[in-house]
């Protein structure tokens, strides 16, 4: 049968679509760094996504085999450069686990305050950048306005704005400066009411819900099978947070702190009553839920910092002097994962008794989180690919190491 021009619908049906390979990246604006995705498309539908990584690879693990643990701290900030403090903490704790070292009480609370502030800063970028991925610019500015104040606080504490190297093996490089706690709580008081603003801008925004809800749905089984962690895992409804379920050396840091793991139970998140209801379009495990877990974790972190400030101001003794730069390590090996903002960041070190580790390994959380993009994006629209990849909140510096 030949088509005639009289009926426009016939022409529509006669269009032949060929399979096409579309290259996204490595300099695509919505790929959070240098990530290259090769999409196999049929019209607007994506049938296969292959991530190509390694553009930032510098073999940090090999560098770690030539430096003492304290010298390697600066390399850990440069992995997840949006949460440098949490990376410093993860590596320090792994080394301390091998050394069987326990930081003093005051140092423990200092670490909680600093790492939870780092989590807020990181989730703010995650939120703003996700808005950018979906085509709205203003939330990014709102997020950076507040993040700037956290960076100012960090700068006052350690002198750096992004690559801190502040928390270190033994404790921290310096105590918090006088008056810092006061400024920190003033910031929290000012920041907390602003979160409602973010929810209006994104969480409940009709366009945002249309773009994020019901897209990229990941079942809890799949989330566990692929080794995802952090908000990506909890967004699928898996009740797991290393701050509660982790190894003793890490959970001991949070001893005496009251907090609830942010995960959906019976259709509700802890503390979600303060904020708008979950939209009816959202399905557990979709992009919207991953985003929402992050937003609630910001509130949780504020709470933890407040508790930390209270504990810290009454604690006595040292904040934890760093160990000697060429401190000999005991023979053996240790692996420790901590709950970084992007998920479980693991560090593994093997020592033969010298000050320099025999082998250093960083298990990246974003690396595992990114590995689900292929199955998650299969069958979605091209425009949804940035929405799905953005909801995983990856940092390429950490993936490529």
């Amino acid at each position, binding site marked *: 049968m030949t088509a005639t021009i009289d009926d426009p619908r016939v022409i529509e049906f006669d269009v032949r679509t060929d399979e096409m390979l579309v290259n996204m990246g490595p300099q695509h604006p919505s790929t959070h760094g240098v990530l290259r995705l090769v999409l196999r498309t049929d019209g607007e539908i994506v049938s296969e996504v292959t991530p190509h990584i390694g553009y930032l690879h510098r073999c940090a693990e090999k560098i770690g085999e030539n430096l003492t643990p304290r010298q390697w701290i600066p390399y850990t900030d440069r992995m997840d450069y949006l949460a440098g403090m949490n990376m410093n903490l993860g590596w320090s704790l792994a080394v301390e686990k091998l050394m069987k070292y326990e930081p003093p009480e005051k140092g423990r609370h200092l670490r909680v305050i600093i790492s939870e502030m780092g989590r807020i800063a990181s989730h703010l970028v995650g939120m703003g950048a996700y808005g950018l991925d979906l085509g709205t610019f203003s939330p990014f500015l709102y997020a950076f306005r507040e993040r700037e104040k956290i960076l100012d606080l960090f700068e006052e504490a350690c002198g750096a704005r992004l690559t801190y190297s502040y928390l270190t093996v033994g404790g921290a490089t310096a105590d918090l400066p006088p008056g810092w706690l006061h400024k920190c709580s003033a910031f929290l008081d000012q920041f907390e009411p602003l979160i409602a603003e973010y929810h209006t801008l994104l969480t409940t925004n009709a366009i945002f819900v249309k773009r994020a809800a019901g897209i990229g749905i990941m079942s809890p089984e799949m989330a*566990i099978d*692929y080794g995802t962690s952090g908000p990506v895992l909890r967004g699928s409804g898996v009740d797991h947070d290393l701050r509660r379920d982790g190894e003793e050396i890490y959970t001991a840091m949070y001893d005496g702190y009251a907090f609830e793991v942010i995960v959906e139970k019976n259709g509700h998140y802890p503390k979600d009553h303060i904020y708008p209801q979950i939209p009816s379009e959202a399905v557990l495990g979709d992009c919207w839920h991953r985003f929402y877990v992050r937003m609630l974790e910001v509130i949780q972190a504020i709470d933890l910092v407040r508790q930390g400030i209270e504990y810290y101001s009454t604690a006595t003794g040292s904040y934890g002097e760093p160990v000697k730069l060429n401190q000999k390590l005991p023979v053996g090996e240790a692996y420790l994962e901590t709950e970084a903002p992007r998920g479980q960041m693991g560090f593994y070190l093997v020592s033969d008794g010298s000050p320099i580790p025999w082998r250093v390994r960083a298990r990246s959380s974003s690396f595992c989180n990114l590995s689900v993009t292929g199955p998650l994006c299969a069958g979605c629209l091209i425009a949804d690919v940035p929405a799905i990849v953005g909801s995983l909140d990856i940092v390429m510096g950490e993936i490529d190491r």
Partner: protein
Amino acid sequence: MSGQAFVDQLKQKFGDKITGANLENVDPWIEVTPDGIVDVCQYLRDEPSLAFDYLNSVTAVDYLHTDEKKAAKSEWQPHLEVVYHLFSMQHKHSLVLKVMLPRWQNEEVGKLPQLATVSHIWQTADWHERELYDLLGVEFIDHPNLRRILCPEDWVGHPLRKDYEMPLEYHGIRGR
């Protein structure tokens, strides 16, 4: 569950495929033979009392002294150790498995040692084994997509091996 209980249970099930254990280390580990790793992993995941459904990481350590004086004094022979870190979401317990491999298959330099993949048991292993192949040179048999992942596809050598030497140049870019 403690380290000794894991060892006893696995020894009872797999006998001589469990070649040893170190329970004194901060993270106790269990040693498995290369031909037993897939069965052991499958059992660890499927047995309800163990339920290791989460694979944290797969990595390896290269044991080789490049300094001859140190090699003469060393207590071990050169070898590769593949390390698996497992976790159970249900029971919240963890386990470390180790597999000892020769640095080269049949002592032929350049021929990569082989090990069966566990990527059909945990999807995490897919990318982790690719990374291991890329950086340490372990060939995983039956892996669905064993390509380099962090280094470019035409890269020569495996950078995390102790005797690796940085190339002098790569596509006109100066190294070293």
